[in-house]
């Protein structure tokens, strides 16, 4: 799944390219099963577990809605191998994360850090929820304030008879 080969979109056939990528990402697993796994786990299961856990937090640059642990893109395999190697070499999760962020930006993190450029991302949902609650509160308050129109003496008398269950409402 790279810009070249199969999706010869380049930037020009953008829609075609996006469609192809979406399809490829959605059905990626179908053909991936036939391919031999390219990302080789290292011997140590503890390292492998850590690598997988970290890999699930990192976004694949090619199939952007998959983590590098899930994606079958070539680059995701390469990056997973980097993660494994570096963890095996004694680096911490934080160091590996920093290594990838230095090259691909905050974009690789599924949990980007809170900074000026990501404030809208982090605060947005809360702002929207707050706006919703405020709107709801206003509507409810307005509704409760609307007064019931007072009954005339005649209407009150009719209501009383109806409530008592006496007399039948004459329809005219």
């Amino acid at each position, binding site marked *: 799944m790279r810009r*070249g080969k199969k999706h010869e979109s380049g930037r020009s056939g953008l829609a075609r390219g996006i469609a192809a990528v979406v399809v490829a990402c959605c059905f990626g697993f179908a053909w991936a099963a036939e391919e031999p796994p390219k990302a080789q786990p290292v011997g140590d299961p503890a390292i492998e577990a850590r690598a997988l856990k970290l890999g699930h937090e990192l976004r694949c640059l090619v199939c952007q809605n998959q983590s590098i642990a899930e994606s079958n893109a*070539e680059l995701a395999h390469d990056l997973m191998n980097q993660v494994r190697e570096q963890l095996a070499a004694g680096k911490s999760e934080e160091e590996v994360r920093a290594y990838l962020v230095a090259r*691909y930006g905050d974009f690789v993190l599924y949990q980007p850090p809170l900074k000026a450029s990501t404030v809208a991302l982090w605060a947005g949902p809360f702002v929207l929820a707050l706006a919703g609650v405020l709107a709801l509160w206003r509507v409810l308050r307005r509704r409760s304030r609307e007064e019931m129109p007072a009954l005339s003496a005649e209407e009150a008398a009719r209501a009383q008879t109806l409530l008592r269950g006496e007399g039948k409402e004459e329809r005219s």
Partner: protein
Amino acid sequence: MKLKYLIPFLIFVTLVALFAYAFRLDPREVPSPLVGKPASAFALPRVDAPGTLAGPADLRGQPWLLNVWATWCVACREEHAMLVRLAREEGVPIVGLNYKEIRGDAELDASRLSPQEEREAALLRARTWLAQHGDPYRFSVLDLDGRVAIDYGVYGVPETFLIDAEGVIRYKHVGPIDERAWREVLQPKWAALVGGKR
């Protein structure tokens, strides 16, 4: 009270405007954090002379382009004529980083090749391709496993980096360079770098 009925309409218009804007953006274009940072050093075998290692150090003192390419990349073929023109007519120094020539080709199974065989096959493919389509590169180097490309934050081919005389990455272009991308985006930046040197 008439105003009240305008609200849903205004929300609708806002949404349409937002979508109209957002659908023009390319979500696959990831901004590179490497712009403004020194281009990372590497020494890789040259395609024309694999015994010789080459890297960014060889281009010090002049602005240049680092172009990531591969023979299996169709978009690279699209932009190739443009690169040849830039090199020949405008004298732009371009260095090629040949990205995973064998392993990146989905139609090949590189796992059965020995490192030596892989290198030979990659050299043959790259050289044949350059002989066929023209060679715009000062030199091209082999990045068989794509490790150097990872250092440059490459996530697809082609990608092109604009690097200044001090070896600092000034711009990253994702996707093929066509006439328009060069004229509107890259050429002004290039002219600024070349002009700044004098």
